[in-house]
């Protein structure tokens, strides 16, 4: 109820910064707010780390992030997953300097302390120099309070009081299930590389856009115009008059939202609407020759995106067939990871087509989005007297309505997405969560 820490005494309250129909610029630009976000959001709620398929074999490891906290995720010889901090228990050096690979242990390059691939300390050079007090301390690599999986998606939080992951996902789980179903089921998904982008803007610029069905005909006008001129229309052209389309935006609780494009994208044939990717003709001929006619549409459409923009607050975005992860760096810097997926049950032709499809939007559209995010950030910084960001689209039209399942459904251009996730953001930022990491021995 008081002014939030670490804002100075007498500074504004969260209720003033986050209003129903507008938010204050400083939540994007102020380093002290960013620092609090790294605790209250990127540590105190469930944060997506990686997909299980990125660690297929025992001994595999990969670097991952909870906001600015760097972690190592491993799969041990018994196939169990482990998550621990990339921070030596001795004097703090990172113990792992590679983005990923295979390792049965991690030796700190500074003084040679050795940790197994569960993050357990097992070797200290010159150990006789240490006494009883030291030996009584927990010196294993620090582990987040909770780690949990949902159908192959690995999440962690430092908050021991965070509700179970499934509770946190809530109504978003059903859409995540449908996304997984489009990929042929949880065990069928294999991450096949990543495209990574650096953006000079606050991470929320990315999250803002993830549920923005308003910007498409303007930000992506070049893409729509090109597609129209060369191919007589296609993919995404249904956004031109989006409020009259069959697409819907859902606020799913806990800051999660989804734009469901499927009624329009899959209304006729998503394959027919798709821009022609390299090798389209060869792939289509291959499918028609090898797949029963009744199944051909389903297989062709598996090369196409799932038709949703599913946004799991705060850092997981499922877009098309890609798993997008937001990594905040500082108030004005963000890394985006676009993980591509292939299907275990697919032949090479289908997986190849999926790769070419997943490359299309990043270079044809995302670059224009990224430019706008950066210019948004620049605009907020460069004229502080203009304080507010308007998020009121459809706030006063009465078109955002609660449905029987407790979700709020709105027109696809509604800024309901922002209003919904900012309500969650405010709850989390106003809280005083417990954050805990354990350095104790893992019970076997």
């Amino acid at each position: 109820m008081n002014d939030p820490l670490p804002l100075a005494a007498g500074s504004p309250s969260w209720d003033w910064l986050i209003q129903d129909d507008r938010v204050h610029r400083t939540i994007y630009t102020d380093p002290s707010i960013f620092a609090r976000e790294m605790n209250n959001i990127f540590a105190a709620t469930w944060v997506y780390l990686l997909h299980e398929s990125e660690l297929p074999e025992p001994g595999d490891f990969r670097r991952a992030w909870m906001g600015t906290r760097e972690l190592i995720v491993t799969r041990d010889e018994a196939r169990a997953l482990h998550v621990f901090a990339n921070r030596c228990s001795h004097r703090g050096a990172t113990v792992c300097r590679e983005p990923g690979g295979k390792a049965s242990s991690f030796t700190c390059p500074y003084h040679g302390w050795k940790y197994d691939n569960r993050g357990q300390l097992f070797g200290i050079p010159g150990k006789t120099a240490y006494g009883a007090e030291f030996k009584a301390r927990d010196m294993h690599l620090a582990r987040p309070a909770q780690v949990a999986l949902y159908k192959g998606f690995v999440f962690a939080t430092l908050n021991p009081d965070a509700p179970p992951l499934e509770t946190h996902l809530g109504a978003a789980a059903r859409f995540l299930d449908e996304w997984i179903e489009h990929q042929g089921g949880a065990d069928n998904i294999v991450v096949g590389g990543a495209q990574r982008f650096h953006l000079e803007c606050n991470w929320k610029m990315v999250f803002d856009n993830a549920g923005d069905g308003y910007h498409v005909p303007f930000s992506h006008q070049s893409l729509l115009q090109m597609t129209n001129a060369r191919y007589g229309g296609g993919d995404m052209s249904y956004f031109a008059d989006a409020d009259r389309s069959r697409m819907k935006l859902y606020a799913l609780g806990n800051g999660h939202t989804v734009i469901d494009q499927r009624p329009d994208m899959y209304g006729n044939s998503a394959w027919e609407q798709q821009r022609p990717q390299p090798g389209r003709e060869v792939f289509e001929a291959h499918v028609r020759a090898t797949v029963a006619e009744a199944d051909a549409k389903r297989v062709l459409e598996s090369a196409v995106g799932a038709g949703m923009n599913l946004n799991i607050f705060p850092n997981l975005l499922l877009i098309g067939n890609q798993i997008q992860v937001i990594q905040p760096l500082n108030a004005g810097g963000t890394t985006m990871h676009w993980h591509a997926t292939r299907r275990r049950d697919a032949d090479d032709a289908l997986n190849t087509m999926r790769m070419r499809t997943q490359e299309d939007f990043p270079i044809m559209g995302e670059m224009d989005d990224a430019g706008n995010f950066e210019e948004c950030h620049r605009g907020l910084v460069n004229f502080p007297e203009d304080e507010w960001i308007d998020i009121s689209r459809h706030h006063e039209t009465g078109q955002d309505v609660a449905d029987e399942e407790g979700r709020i459904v709105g027109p696809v251009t509604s800024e309901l997405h922002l209003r919904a996730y900012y309500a969650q953001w405010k709850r989390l930022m106003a809280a005083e969560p417990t954050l805990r990491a354990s350095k104790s021995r893992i019970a076997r």
Partner: protein
Amino acid sequence: MKNDTATAASAAPRYQPASNYVDDAFYGWLNEVSLDLDAVTTQRTGRPDAALAAEIERLLTVESRLLDQHAYAEWLDLYTPECAYWIPATRPAGDPRAQITLEFHDRRRLLDRVARLGTGLAYSQLPASRTARQLSGLEIWASPGRSDEWRVRCNFLMAESRAGKRRVLGGWYGFVVRRVGDALRLAFKQVNLLDPDEPQGNNSFFL
């Protein structure tokens, strides 16, 4: 409407130019070329004579300059109809059939990209990136078993300036150059950035 389009498609392909050449054999060839371009070797067989080497070097110089000039139609004219442009997302390059790339285009998608930039509404290139490329360390050798085709590898350093920000991009290019009639044409360009696995900035022009 939709059905009309589909019917028309069977008469004259809706997607022009057709991309029938991007098949498994084509990917296999690209992978073979990619491995050869990056081979650790001191001995390349089939080095061109001085006149041919000079002709190929001129072609690469023009290719670079046309990109620096944003003359994309003229730039694409340097390529064969069945060409590929590939920016791997890893170093060394993986198999584009199994791994995502930063970019992988056939001629049709290159034309899409050129047309998109040409709308004047591609905001990531408003203003446009100004670039200056330096090529060095040129190596040229004949494609195995062919007298009309050569493989080329060289380093590049690209200064870029856009909207008041300067960057330097670097790495190496691989090319396949083919004799088509009287002219030399490019059948393939591979852009191997120094850091394709690290977060990239705004590379929405052509590398």
